[in-house]
């Protein structure tokens, strides 16, 4: 696909002006890194604050007659408890197929005071699939509105809260707990903000009209300690945080139990089911999955990339790496992958086959770098 065929986010000109190295990602021409480079951008985000353009992601609103009716509909597609999602709260879940495989993973936010409105954020590469699924299943009394004209900008890192609070002192942004969401006003711009992200750091994701995105981004970038961060560092940050990347760690052949996302299926749903693949998932919950997503720490310095075979010490293949690389904050290689459950216990020694050599590694619990979420 030529560069002309790629979509551009509302911040495309800003990235070019900042000297970004651009490359295609999920059909968009996206900044992979800026002149500082992936390593410096990664470390900056952990120490100060990083601004990420994630406008390629899909945003949509669904509306229904009331929350219970709308939640009942969404619960036919995903295994999270949406009914008990309180106003002003956000939840992570997955759209599932009939085999319990993951069609996409997403965030669902219920705006404060909303009784019959939810906001969704889905993966860029899956938004067409997700919107088609929603449109096909949507009951007549409900409405799906893709927010195609909305930008999404993440501000992540220990200085994210003070930065936004400085610009909007009376909006209560600093005291928002992790996974809360609400509309707010920052420097005369109307935004929808959630305290969440994809780095393991404290931070926010801000949705706002495309026409105002560059003004907002430039204002944030002018604040002390804020630097632009590309998708390269976004990937190494989420890997260290043990967060899954759709199309790599999750796909239609993986279910949430083997993906170690059981925490995202609340008890009411585990008991009552009623979502696609509920039977297979109940079976996996009762008997344990055949394979499990685990964290892997190579003993040496060689990174094990996606697709690396994982073998038992006696030589049999027991799994495969789905995300792997060097963790700049860990200062060592880190990886995630699926292994047979008999080899999934913490501390188990496995071998990674890198360029024909068997390199020793250990199964460890993710995250590789501690989360710094603001719990209030």
């Amino acid at each position, binding site marked *: 696909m030529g560069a002309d065929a790629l979509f551009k986010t509302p911040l495309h000109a800003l990235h070019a002006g900042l000297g970004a190295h651009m490359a295609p990602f999920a059909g968009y021409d996206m900044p*992979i890194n800026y002149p500082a*480079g992936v390593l410096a951008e990664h470390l900056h985000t952990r120490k100060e604050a990083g601004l990420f353009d994630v406008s390629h992601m899909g945003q949509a609103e669904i509306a229904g007659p009331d929350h219970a009716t709308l939640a009942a509909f969404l619960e036919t597609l995903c295994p999270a408890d949406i009914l008990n999602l309180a106003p002003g709260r956000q939840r992570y879940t997955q759209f599932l197929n009939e085999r319990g495989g993951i069609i996409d993973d997403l965030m669902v936010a219920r705006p404060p005071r909303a009784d019959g409105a939810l906001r969704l954020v889905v993966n860029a590469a899956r938004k067409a699939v997700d919107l088609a699924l929603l449109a096909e299943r949507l009951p007549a009394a409900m409405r799906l509105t893709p927010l195609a004209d909305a930008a999404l900008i993440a501000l992540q890192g220990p200085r994210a809260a003070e930065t936004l609070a400085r610009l909007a002192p009376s909006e209560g942004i600093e005291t928002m707990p992790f996974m809360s969401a609400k509309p707010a006003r920052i420097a005369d711009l109307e935004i929808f903000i959630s305290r969440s992200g994809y780095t393991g750091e404290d931070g926010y994701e801000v949705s706002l009209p495309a026409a105002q995105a560059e003004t907002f981004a430039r204002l944030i970038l002018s604040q002390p300690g804020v630097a632009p961060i590309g998708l390269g560092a976004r990937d190494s940050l989420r890997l260290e945080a043990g967060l899954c990347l759709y199309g790599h760690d999750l796909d239609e052949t993986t279910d949430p139990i083997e993906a170690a996302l059981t925490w995202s299926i609340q008890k009411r749903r585990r008991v009552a089911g009623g979502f696609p693949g509920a039977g297979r998932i109940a079976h996996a919950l009762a008997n344990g999955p055949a394979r499990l997503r685990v964290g892997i720490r190579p003993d040496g*310095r*060689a990174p094990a990339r996606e697709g690396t075979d994982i073998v038992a010490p006696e030589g049999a293949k027991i799994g495969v790496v789905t995300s792997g690389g060097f963790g700049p904050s860990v200062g060592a290689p880190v990886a995630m992958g699926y292994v047979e459950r008999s080899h999934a216990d913490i501390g188990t020694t496995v071998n990674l086959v890198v360029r024909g050599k068997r390199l020793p590694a250990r199964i460890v619990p993710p995250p590789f770098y501690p989360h710094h979420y603001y719990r209030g």
Partner: protein
Amino acid sequence: MAEIRYTKDHEYIRVEGDEGVVGISDYAQKQLGDVVFAEPPPVGRKLNAGEAAAVVESVKAASDVFAPVSGEVVAVNSEVESSPGIINEDALGRGWLFRIKLANRDDLSALMDEAAYADYLKTLD
């Protein structure tokens, strides 16, 4: 004065007598970004020109380093294994990867000199 030659894959070899010091060019280290891992070949390994000899990896990706000439590895830079970032800081100096004893000096004639390599870089976007 030691002569330096480059490959189209951006390896360099600095010829010193019947041996050469091999690494990746400054252009290559810039393209790769922050190097976080480097694995030179073992001493004693016999390489054919064009054969994958070493590996350098950035945060994002792994790249093979190909032998610019045929010969035997006579020394490796252990400093790049412990501090791979020196490849970014000084690719042509402290960031060298290995030393090779040339099997055939004629191999050098297939490589570009400094001026030809500079012209070649201009042809790449």
